[in-house]
């Protein structure tokens, strides 16, 4: 089945130690998103790629970076995790056509713990 895969499902890191979360997709979608979701809150968009074009949200801290080496993979890098970065990180994909974005398909998420 076509899907969005996130690895690992659970990640523990230390305060200030860089961490990378990964996302892959078999849907061949051209748009990939990263969201941060804290407990009992809605997902908050960090950034997205439309094809190779990177689109950062204005309020995303510089501590968060992303890479998309090819259509299938996208990475979220947290350069110096703080305690406030502990959250669920969700990857999503969609098919974009011009300026129209279709529904998003979500991965299961990576739960990040910062010690």
């Amino acid at each position, binding site marked *: 089945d076509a899907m969005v895969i996130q690895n690992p499902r659970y990640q523990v890191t230390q305060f200030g130690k860089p961490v990378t979360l990964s996302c892959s997709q078999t849907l061949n979608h051209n748009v990939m998103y990263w969201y941060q979701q804290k407990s009992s809150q809605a997902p908050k968009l960090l950034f997205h790629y439309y094809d190779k074009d990177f689109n950062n949200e204005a309020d995303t801290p510089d501590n968060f970076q992303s890479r998309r080496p090819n259509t299938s993979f996208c990475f979220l890098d947290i350069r110096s995790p703080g305690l406030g970065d502990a959250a*669920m990180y969700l990857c999503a994909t969609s098919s974009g056509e011009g*300026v129209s974005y279709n529904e998003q398909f979500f991965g299961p998420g990576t739960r990040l713990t910062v010690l």
Partner: protein
Amino acid sequence: AQSVTQLDSHVSVSEGTPVLLRCNYSSSYSPSLFWYVQHPNKGLQLLLKYTSAATLVKGINGFEAEFKKSETSFHLTKPSAHMSDAAEYFCVVTGTGGFKTIFGAGTRLFVKA
């Protein structure tokens, strides 16, 4: 500007009774509207979507929603709640003419036996 408001942070129903989760939106463009469900520690699953076709949209697991432009609403309903429906539900609006996906704050549905 676009916005979405989920009118209830929590809804509690008894198993077998109807479910109503309310969502109002504001959009300068013709919106696309979605409902997603999220079970604990899981990703979001698309329940249904409205993209300017039929105003009554049927989704998975017996859910449906009606787009009412005059009321700027997109409420989610189900005739009979099941215990497995207990989850968080998000109403989402995406406008054409420019990307911006807006999530509602979410409604937590509790289903009592």
